[in-house]
């Protein structure tokens, strides 16, 4: 009997087992099939103790495959929380970074849960790109066996809110998968909603796993979390001492970039080059005071936030988001303040987005002030969303700085509507925090931005602006390890004299030979703007040679323009230098990505 025509009714196997068997065998060559048949026969003769199980337990051999597409770690956290819930219910679950997920596995997958963010103009996060491309390619298999669910994380301020989640959701259905539960698209303040979505999902799948003998949560493929156990994390950040706040752009620079050094001493927190540091901040007291004054509310008024009672001032200062604005605030605030014009604006999504793009919360309230008769302290608090910590790519290696962590922070500062504006976290770090003060931090690991395990492997780093941060960490690490692989850094910024971040350090690395090559692009120093991608193209032949020698390529910095321009430059270089077609060049980079030789940390 041919396996392809095997049906459950004609065999002692359940329908699901038949599918599994078909799936397995389809991957085996004749020799492997022969070996498996012998193995199973022998196993059965020994009594089948290890493998024999009632047919009804078939589902127990399945597990929840939870994958995440994550730029900042949020989706990973939600995925891990889901796995923990599963474990508590004895449901086997494994959490897989989408960058590590084998696309060929999809046709055999039974339960697939996708938690994903979206970035830029509706694109998948970097670690999900390969899977996304596969899913939308002709190679994508029909998945009638698949039960799935998708959870989107996003920010309603963006036009393409949760687009990647929607894409996955629709595509899997199109390919024949069945939804375990409806997709949810969650805004920045996602914690509670994610919990309930996860719980609901577990309730749905639990019956299918009811008889599972044992369950385990597997972090797969096990590369994750070398981070030593620390009691501090995103939920319980460590109050770390700020050691150094040093401006590293020149006095005539249009940019204010700070080199920040923070002590992790006593925290037990560790990190690897490539990781990010999460930072909680306090809002500017001047803005808090003005907000109170504009709303006519008393700072001492008690409000409720996440089941805690605290003063309005405290809530506004350290719990709520005041710098980044978002549609939900306008909707709730407009309703509470009864302002018609604002309510009108809230209904036009496109207009609202462009209105919000250039405004902080305070700008909206300045423009549409209210009196205490039309908004209560609690209403204001309910209109605002919880502060999200900001993530900064770590600019140091513990191999060099030990208990410290360094950041490269561009201070967001601009004038608008006749008023100076400062970024929330960057303003806090740069202006309001004194050296010696404490700041709440946690480590956010990023396994998709890692140095090659082999120290001999050449490394190409492309990091204009503050994108240089992780490469400072890389260089420190390679230096401390005595790594013999070549290192090539591309850096760019507006002006050579003012904006050459870490110039003297890089000069030292060049002199000592740690940096094999350093190419810089200062866009505003010549009539024609020169960017890093131009420098890449200038060195196309050598760059391709490095790639052929097995170099890893890293990009860090601006996602919207730089990373795309650099990607295009790489495609062109591979095409021209490798004598390839556009499709072959694309494939070449895709393969680099899959091999983790092409990694991005872009924002």
């Amino acid at each position, binding site marked *: 009997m041919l396996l392809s025509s095997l049906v459950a009714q004609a065999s002692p196997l359940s329908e699901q087992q038949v599918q599994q068997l078909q799936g397995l065998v389809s991957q085996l060559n004749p020799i492997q099939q022969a070996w498996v048949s012998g193995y199973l026969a022998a196993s059965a003769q020994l009594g089948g103790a290890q493998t024999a199980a009632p047919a009804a337990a078939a589902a127990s051999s399945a597990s929840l495959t939870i994958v995440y597409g994550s730029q900042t770690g949020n989706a990973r956290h939600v995925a891990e929380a889901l796995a923990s819930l599963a474990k508590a219910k004895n449901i086997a679950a494994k959490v897989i970074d989408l960058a590590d997920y084998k696309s060929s596995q999809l046709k055999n997958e039974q339960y697939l849960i996708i938690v994903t963010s979206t970035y830029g103009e509706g694109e998948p996060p970097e670690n999900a790109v390969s899977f996304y491309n596969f899913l939308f390619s002709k190679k994508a298999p029909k998945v009638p066996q698949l039960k799935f669910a998708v959870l989107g994380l996003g920010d309603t301020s963006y036009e393409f809110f949760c687009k990647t989640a929607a894409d996955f959701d629709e595509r899997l259905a199109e390919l024949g998968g069945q939804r375990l539960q409806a997709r949810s698209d969650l805004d920045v303040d996602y914690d509670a909603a994610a919990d309930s979505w996860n719980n609901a999902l577990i309730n749905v799948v639990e019956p299918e796993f009811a008889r599972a003998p044992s369950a385990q949560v597997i972090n797969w493929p096990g590369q994750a979390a070398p981070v030593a156990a620390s009691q501090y994390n995103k939920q319980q950040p460590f109050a770390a001492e700020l050691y150094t706040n*040093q*401006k*590293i*752009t*020149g*006095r005539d620079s249009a940019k204010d970039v700070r*080199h920040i050094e923070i002590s992790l001493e006593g925290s037990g927190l560790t990190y690897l080059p490539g990781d990010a540091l999460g930072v909680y901040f306090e809002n500017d007291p001047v803005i808090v005071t003005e907000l109170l004054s504009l709303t006519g509310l008393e700072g001492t008024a008690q409000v409720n936030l996440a089941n805690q009672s605290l003063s309005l001032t405290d809530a506004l200062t350290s719990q709520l988001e005041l710098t980044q604005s978002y549609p939900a605030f306008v909707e709730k605030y407009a309703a509470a303040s009864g302002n018609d014009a604002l309510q009108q604006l809230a209904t036009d999504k496109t207009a609202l987005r462009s209105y919000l793009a250039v405004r902080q919360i305070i700008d909206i309230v300045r423009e549409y002030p209210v009196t205490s008769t039309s908004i209560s302290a609690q209403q204001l608090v309910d209109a605002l969303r919880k502060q999200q910590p900001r993530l900064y790519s770590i600019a140091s290696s513990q191999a060099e700085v030990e208990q410290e962590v360094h950041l490269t922070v561009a201070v967001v500062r601009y004038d608008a509507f006749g008023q100076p504006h400062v970024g929330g976290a960057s303003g806090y770090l740069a202006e309001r925090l004194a050296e010696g003060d404490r700041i709440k931090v946690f480590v956010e690991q990023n396994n998709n931005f890692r140095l090659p395990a082999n120290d001999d492997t050449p490394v190409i780093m492309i990091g204009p602006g503050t994108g240089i941060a992780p490469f400072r960490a890389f260089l420190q690490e390679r230096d401390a390890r005595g790594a013999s692989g070549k290192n090539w850094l591309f850096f760019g910024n507006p002006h*050579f*004299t*003012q904006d*050459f*971040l*870490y*110039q*003297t*350090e*890089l*000069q030292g690395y*060049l002199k000592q030979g740690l940096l094999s090559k*350093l*190419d*810089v692009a*200062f866009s505003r*120093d*010549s009539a024609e703007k020169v960017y890093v991608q131009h420098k890449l193209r200038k060195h196309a032949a050598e760059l391709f040679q490095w790639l052929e020698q097995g170099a890893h390529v890293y990009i860090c910095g601006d996602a919207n323009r730089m990373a795309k321009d650099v990607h295009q430059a790489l495609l062109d270089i591979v095409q021209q230098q490798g004598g390839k077609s556009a499709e072959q060049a694309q494939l070449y980079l895709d393969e680099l990505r899959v091999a983790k030789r092409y990694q991005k940390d872009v924002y």
Partner: protein
Amino acid sequence: MSQYPIKPELQVSGKLSDNERLKAESDHLRGTIKQDLDDEITGGFNGDNFMLVRFHGMYQQDDRDIRAERAAQKLEPLHNVMLRARMPGGIITPKQWLAIDQFAAEKTLYGSIRLTTRQTFQFHGVLKPHIKPMHQFLNSIGIDSIATAGDVNRNVLCTSNPVESVLHQQAYQWAVKISEHLLPKTRAYAEIWLDEEKVETTETEPVLGENYLPRKFKTTVVIPPHNDIDVHANDLNFVAIAENGKLIGFNVLVGGGLAMTFGDTSTYPRKAEALGFISLEHTLKVAEHVVTVQRDYGDRVNRKNAKTKYTIDRIGVDTFKAEVEQRVGVPFSPARPFEFTSRGDRFGWVAGIDGKHHLTLFIENGRVLDFPGKPLKTGLAAIASVHQGDFRMTANQNLIIAGVPAEQKALIEQLARDHGLIDESHSEQRKNSMACVSFPTCPLAMAEAERYLPELVTKVESLLAKHQLADDHIVLRVTGCPNGCGRAMLAEVGLVGRAPGKYNVYLGGNKIGTRIPKLYLDNVGESQILSELDNLIGRWATERNSGECFGDFVIRTGVVAEVKVSKTDFHA
């Protein structure tokens, strides 16, 4: 290396200084400057190139005011170059002026044109990407900066005497010829900056030598009785001797120089002394061989003793003279009598014997820039756009609008007044005070000079006024280090920087610049300087002989001893 037999007993033996190595290895001043221009990681020059660019007329500098700040910012110093143009005699056309005016505004960090004590202009704060375009731009207007620094003969000065226009024209022509004759022959400048092809010939330096000179070398042409170019600050001086208003030859003075090193008594400022008179036809030959004798016998072991003045003191002026005579093939005649009567510039209008008019403008510190209420730079550009004659930069950092026809006088004067270029409130004291550039650009600066001078002058003015001497003046000069750019070692009161706010005070030079002053106060601050000057000016006011200048007074009354022979007297 010399075509003349070398007398080893006249040479200094020992391990050559590192500068000799770098010149020898430089491939006739090329080094790896070209590669450095393509190095985008630093704004400076690497290794030997740092020194070699000097031979091309540039100094690598940085903004010293913000050096520490930038170090904390993990940024290298704000490297840039200062360019010193080669302008023998300091004559520049209005068209050239307009061009450099624009370049200074657009391509330099400080936006200024600096008129310097070397009778030329400098650009300060040129960033690396602008350096090569700068040379090409200068070349397009007929200006270069070859050998205005480094161990070569530098820009040749010539008295700015617009009145004796015929004599001046002749002397000026000689300044140009001497400058050309003593230029390096290497094509390095043309290749590096002007992209000219490398010519496959065996390059030699018949005059300067393959290793160039032991140290910098300065030459002037002076027209007595005016000593505006300060002969005693220079290695080689041609003193114009005229008969019936016509140039017939030169007295040759050698061995002047003002630089010294603190704490090293083997170094000292020294006056030039006469070798004798030569007729015109021997001028270039004599210039060449004063240079070759210094080339062959100057100290190449100890750079601090490498200048011509020390060579002469070491081998003796008679030996030096005999060597020059032997090489020229003509003996010196006895020096002709001449007299210096003045050193400062004659401000305001003068009429030349050719019927043209000349307006000398006082430019404080030589700094051509638009100041609040005094748009000097704009004013000079406005004048340049209508002026039909030329401009003459003086060795006192001032500017002459020369060759103005009578019908344009009123227009030029109006423009000058409208832009603050004529300011009757400037005292004689201010017009006779001078400082070098110093902070923030000069890497050698130990104390403020140019930025300090205006307020110092104001304080000295009030001391003079206090003692009823407001119309009198003292030649006052401030220099930021002992290298002598501000020529404080020929001042009646000379301040030489020791450390921020601290100076050595030297007294006893004279009005005409023929006496070296002597140390009076060592490493002191302003309050002590002013209280001592108050006391001395008070004494001068009451005890002076009729018309006696301050420098003469302090010598006569024994406030300081006279420096007659520098080698023995200066440190005594």
